[in-house]
């Protein structure tokens, strides 16, 4: 079986990574910082005297966002080359 190198397969791989990144994006901000904060508050440790949810709301989510964009950029550059659709 040869690997599928078509534009459709490239797009499918792209959508997959976008969805994975967006799930992480949502969990770190809407999840940890807002909806799941009460659950995180039950954890036995604190950061600077407050629960992890507060840290995610004020700093953690922003750091996750930066990480996500650079990971996506790196992943897509690799994908572009693999599927031979990159700019020379």
């Amino acid at each position, binding site marked *: 079986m040869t690997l599928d190198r078509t*534009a459709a397969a490239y*797009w499918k791989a792209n959508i997959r990574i976008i969805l994975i990144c967006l799930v992480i994006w949502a969990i770190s901000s809407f999840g940890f910082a807002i*909806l799941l904060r009460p659950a995180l508050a039950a954890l036995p440790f604190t950061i600077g005297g407050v629960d992890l949810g507060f*840290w995610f*709301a004020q700093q953690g989510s922003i750091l996750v966002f930066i990480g996500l964009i650079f990971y*996506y950029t790196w992943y897509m550059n690799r994908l572009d080359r693999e599927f031979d659709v*990159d700019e020379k």
Partner: protein
Amino acid sequence: MDQFTLNLLIVGATFALYIGIAIWSRAGSTSDFYTASRGVNPIVNGAATAADWMSAASFISMAGLIAFVGYGNSSFLMGWTGGYVLLALLLAPYLRKFGRFTVPEFIGDRFYSQSARIVAVVCLLVISITYVIGQMAGAGVAFSRFLEVQNSTGLLIASGVVFMYAVLGGMKGITYTQLAQYCVLITAYTIPAVFISIQLTGNPLPPLGLFSTHAESGLPLLTKLDQVLTELGFHDYTGLHSSMFNMFLFTMSLMIGTAGLPHVIIRFFTVPRVADARKSAGWALIFIALLYLTAPAVGAMARLNIITTIFPDGTAEQPIEYSQQPDWMETWAATGLLAFEDKNGDGRIQYYNDASDEFAATAAERGWEGNEMVTFNRDILVLANPEIAQLPGWVIALIAAGGLAAALSTAAGLLLAISSAISHDLLKSVFMPKITDKQELMAARISMAFAIAVATVLGMNPPGFAAQVVALAFGLAAATLFPALMMGIFSRKMNRQGAIVGMLVGLGATLLYIFTYLGWFFIPDTNMLANTPDNWLFGISPLSFGAIGAVLNFLAAYVTMKLTDEPPAHIQDLVESIRVPRGAEGAIDH
């Protein structure tokens, strides 16, 4: 040297720098003017985007917004940064591949419809004009305070400077000016924050200082802050005191709105390659995060500082006497942004939450007759920071330059979005399709000058609704442009009927919802329902409605698409082609 001379010198030097850059990078063609000929390094573009995006509100007001509400206003931090993830993943690379000059141009071409393009122009103009009024008004205020001139004189100087570099240089001039403005604003923001962080926690990095130990009490800084606040009857800093649902929706609206703001989107048209558009969004977020990670530290530390200044021996003891107040309080009291009133006539400053019923008994017991810090403008926090930390005069001057840089860079970006929509989308594509590149460049410059004039006039007499309109700008960006762009990229089958109906539904629903609570066209007393949480539909605040508007846009577009014809084959091919990066360079000239 006195403070005034220092302000003049430092602000003057930064202005000379901006104008010098503009002359060096004059635009020679429409491609220069609209997109800096797509030759901008992605890291430079990231810094320019950061300056473009961070307005006077981010620079001056955000720390105060967080300081006075605490955790609940983390929405601003997450919302105004999370949008860049959406931009990097969902919009920037594809719009760059498409290789057009403006946002309405993409919408018009992708949906093969001049009507769609005109709807997009209308949305863009409403979003950008409302936003730019606030920036110009903010620049006027900053000038009048730091240069000690009349508000209107300050505004005229500001528009003169923007005129020089924006009209001359277009996107090319704006990009490099914004890079310089970013450097000025981040330096100005960070220096006082570092010193305050060292004073309070011994940690020179404010974002880490926020989560470290308060040197004086030995408690974690935030624990200490929660403690002094609750002891004075205020809400604790780290708890949630509004509805979780609304915080969720508000954060979502700010994120989607950020990703839909036209002046931010067009910045991604300026980089050479598709890969650079993704990378550039990451750099933009790094540069933004430098300020956004510092802001919550500034907010919390300044709030704690103010309370410990007023209650030097602890909140259970007597507050300081009026005669003992530090210099910065007197300075700011002179501006009217800080005001005291000795209600019980004991010569001491009582600062506490007199709206708290639980605290009322304690207050009565101690002979307090109401909160005596009667005015406390939130914007003071950042502006007075250098004085609170007792930093030298040049740091105060730097803050002035930083605030102006933040307001002017955003104004310039907005003005460019407005003028390119007028010259490129209205004149070139609808009214005068025959004009040459040279004439179009002239038209772009004239419409820029015209836009600056309008913004200056409106900034001088800001309509009462300028502040509320920011919510409208974000809501509309979220409810109209973002979904249209996203569907244009991710749905091959989305047709022009779907896009137009979607945008109109998003626009209409958002306007209707906001006007219902804030008044028709923000005219006082024309609101149909009082703007209180009890009246809100499902408890959704008008500020948070953008996210709902976006959902309605998607739904309406989908239903319309199902009922109408497929888009023509060449449009479906076009969508296929923007999904792959190869060939982006070929798309430059068209």
